[in-house]
């Protein structure tokens, strides 16, 4: 958001400057037409275009082709098997239960990640003396690798001597099997994810807050608006575009959940936290069935597309 706000302002800046120099506007077109076509731009785009084609486009196409084969990681001879991977994936209870886990994680993690990001940004936007420290503290976990984050939290959640359970028993409460209990394991992963990634949403909101012109608040002050009123009628509406962006990014990120779960619970206990990507991984790399795993991947792809389209529809309509 920060970047796009800045970009928009630069854009408008450029536009005003051309508007200012109105007279020569008529002249340039013939000059451009007469100049030979420059291929320089293509060369700049080429490296990325090649990487994009080789590592994203081509795998996407071949992956789709694999869904119709019984291709195996072992290199065993494979052949066309029609739609059977697709029918199998749609009737495989493990696909549905792990898709459900992915959706539960998304549902549980997205609201707190967006709200906490906003809340932290509002709290620290005006902090002066400690501002740098608070910004650093909230964003720092985000730069940690997932292996470090999960290791820290697995220790915190340890039964018996882990910080969380130790505190609970110290307060005279009973221990909770944070990662061992089917009912709370997913929540434990959500809490870890919140601590780890909220910094990114926080940063987007913080940048957007700093982009709101002070004059608007000054005008509101002159009109005698209360703090709550300013938050509700100025800050939040002006953060709308950031909220949409944060929400889209967060939903997609949450739907792609895998790393934390795999490292913290391996999908357990009793598959209670196994997300769809883990099942794809297990089918394809542990179970060697690349064709079948590809078919499930495309199911997830479809789910993410549906989510994105619905979201786009919802927000773009209101935008108009």
């Amino acid at each position: 958001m920060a970047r796009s706000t800045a970009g928009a302002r630069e854009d408008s800046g450029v536009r005003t400057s051309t508007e200012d120099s109105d007279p020569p506007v008529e002249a340039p077109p013939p000059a451009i037409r007469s100049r030979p076509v420059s291929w320089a731009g293509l060369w700049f785009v080429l490296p990325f275009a090649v990487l994009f084609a080789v590592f994203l486009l081509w795998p996407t196409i071949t992956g789709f082709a694999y869904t119709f084969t019984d291709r195996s990681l072992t290199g065993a001879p494979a052949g066309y098997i029609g739609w059977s991977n697709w029918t199998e994936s749609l009737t495989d209870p493990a696909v549905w239960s792990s898709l459900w886990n992915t959706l539960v994680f998304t549902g549980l993690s997205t609201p707190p990640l967006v709200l906490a990001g906003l809340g932290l940004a509002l709290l620290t936007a005006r902090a002066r003396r400690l501002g740098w420290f608070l910004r650093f503290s909230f964003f720092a976990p985000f730069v940690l690798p997932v292996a470090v984050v999960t290791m820290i939290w697995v220790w915190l959640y340890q039964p018996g001597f882990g910080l969380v359970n130790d505190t609970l028993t110290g307060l005279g409460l009973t221990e909770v099997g944070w990662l061992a209990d089917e009912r709370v394991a997913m929540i434990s992963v959500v809490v870890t994810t919140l601590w780890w990634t909220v910094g990114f949403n926080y940063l987007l909101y913080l940048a957007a807050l700093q982009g709101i012109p002070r004059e608007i608040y000054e005008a509101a002050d002159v009109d005698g608006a209360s703090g709550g009123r300013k938050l509700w009628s100025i800050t939040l509406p002006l953060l709308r575009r950031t909220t949409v962006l944060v929400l889209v990014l967060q939903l997609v990120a949450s739907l792609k959940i895998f790393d934390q779960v795999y490292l913290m619970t391996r999908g357990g206990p009793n598959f209670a936290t196994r997300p769809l990507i883990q099942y794809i991984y297990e089918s394809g790399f542990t179970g060697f069935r690349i064709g079948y795993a590809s078919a499930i991947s495309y199911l997830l792809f479809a789910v993410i597309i549906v989510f994105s389209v619905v979201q786009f529809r919802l927000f773009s309509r209101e935008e108009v």
Partner: protein
Amino acid sequence: MRHHETPQPPTVSRRALLAITLAVAGSGATACGSVDDVGERVALDQWNLFGGGDGARMIEMHQRYAAEHPGVDLRATTYAWGPPFYTKLAMGAAGGRGAAVATVHVSRLKGLAPGRLLDAIDARALSSAGLAASDMERTVWDKCFVDGELYAVPMDTHVLVNYYNREICAAAGVLDAEGHLRETHGVDEYVALLKEVKAVTGTFGTSLDTNAGWRPFWALYRQQDGELLFGDGDFQLDESKALAAFDVMRRLADEGLAPRDSNGAATSANFVNGLGGVVQVGNWEIPVYQKAGLDFGVAQFPDFFGNHRTQGDSHAYVLPHRRDRHQARLDESLAYIAWMLRNGITWAGGGHIPAYLPVAESAQYLTMLPQSEYRDAAANVQFDPDIWFSGSGARMQDDANAVFQGLYAGTQTPETALAGFTDILRTLLRIPDPT
């Protein structure tokens, strides 16, 4: 911000810079190849799945190996036991860039696509490295062949054994004159023994691992000569024998002789803390109990149905598939395997029964207690069924464990467990064999 002098831009033309960049990028691949053999030293990557006591023993052996072989650059990597290790192994081999040597469970051999993910081992090359077939424990050695080709070299046999706490068992009066656990025959005699033990501990007779029900099930089923055969997308299971095995498992928990819910860690803790006076778990727990300073003995898996057959498996070395296997590295790999087997006495300390007979029959091993107390179990080992989804840490075991857990927890009867187990087998059989 520190203030440095502005560095002078190097006087290289853009074109030259581009050429250098491309050259460096291109040489990346060749550079990787040359790092493998540092000077005259042969690089030897070894991948294994041993943590805990086994891992410490393997590291100890590797340190000695490295000291004795300055010409070999041994690089051992340990991956998490079970699926993470096997996934890594398969992916490395699928790309033809597996490690030079890796360890596996023999029960997983069929599922690792021998011939594709694993390279066959030339028996003649192996014997010139010093390992002859006649030096190998017959039962496990035979398991290392697939379609007549040798794919693995066994390190050990590891089995479910019967640990007993000497102090508790003495108090319960279930030790014989020599201080060994009293020999029992049949389910009832063993249950009676557990009751005597429970009278002393007050909690359990045996502190079983209820999350790992597959192993005792397979031992109990095989003690009755039960067969589990696969073919033509179908299976053959002796239902009455399976029910009898399930009933033993149910009975131990129902009569309060075993815990209703206990994972591996809790099982060890229960035994060490004297909540159970005996326990049937794998021989690999020996170092754990020794470290805890426990006075214990180890007997073969109890005779429930007329013999001491027990579930077990074998760790073995394999050669993951490589597109380019240099002769020097192959020779070094086989020499490494031979060295590790010859020095297997260290490995045997971890409770595993050596597969290499010169070690298994050595005076050093025979006097090693309690390790050599159950050495006859190597002949009683019952390997898991021979099909791609079977074996240690593979799907059939995992799924069966989840069902069998209910027999102890009291949520499954032998009949529902049988239905659950046959469901698992049917589901797994429907999956096309990917190997």
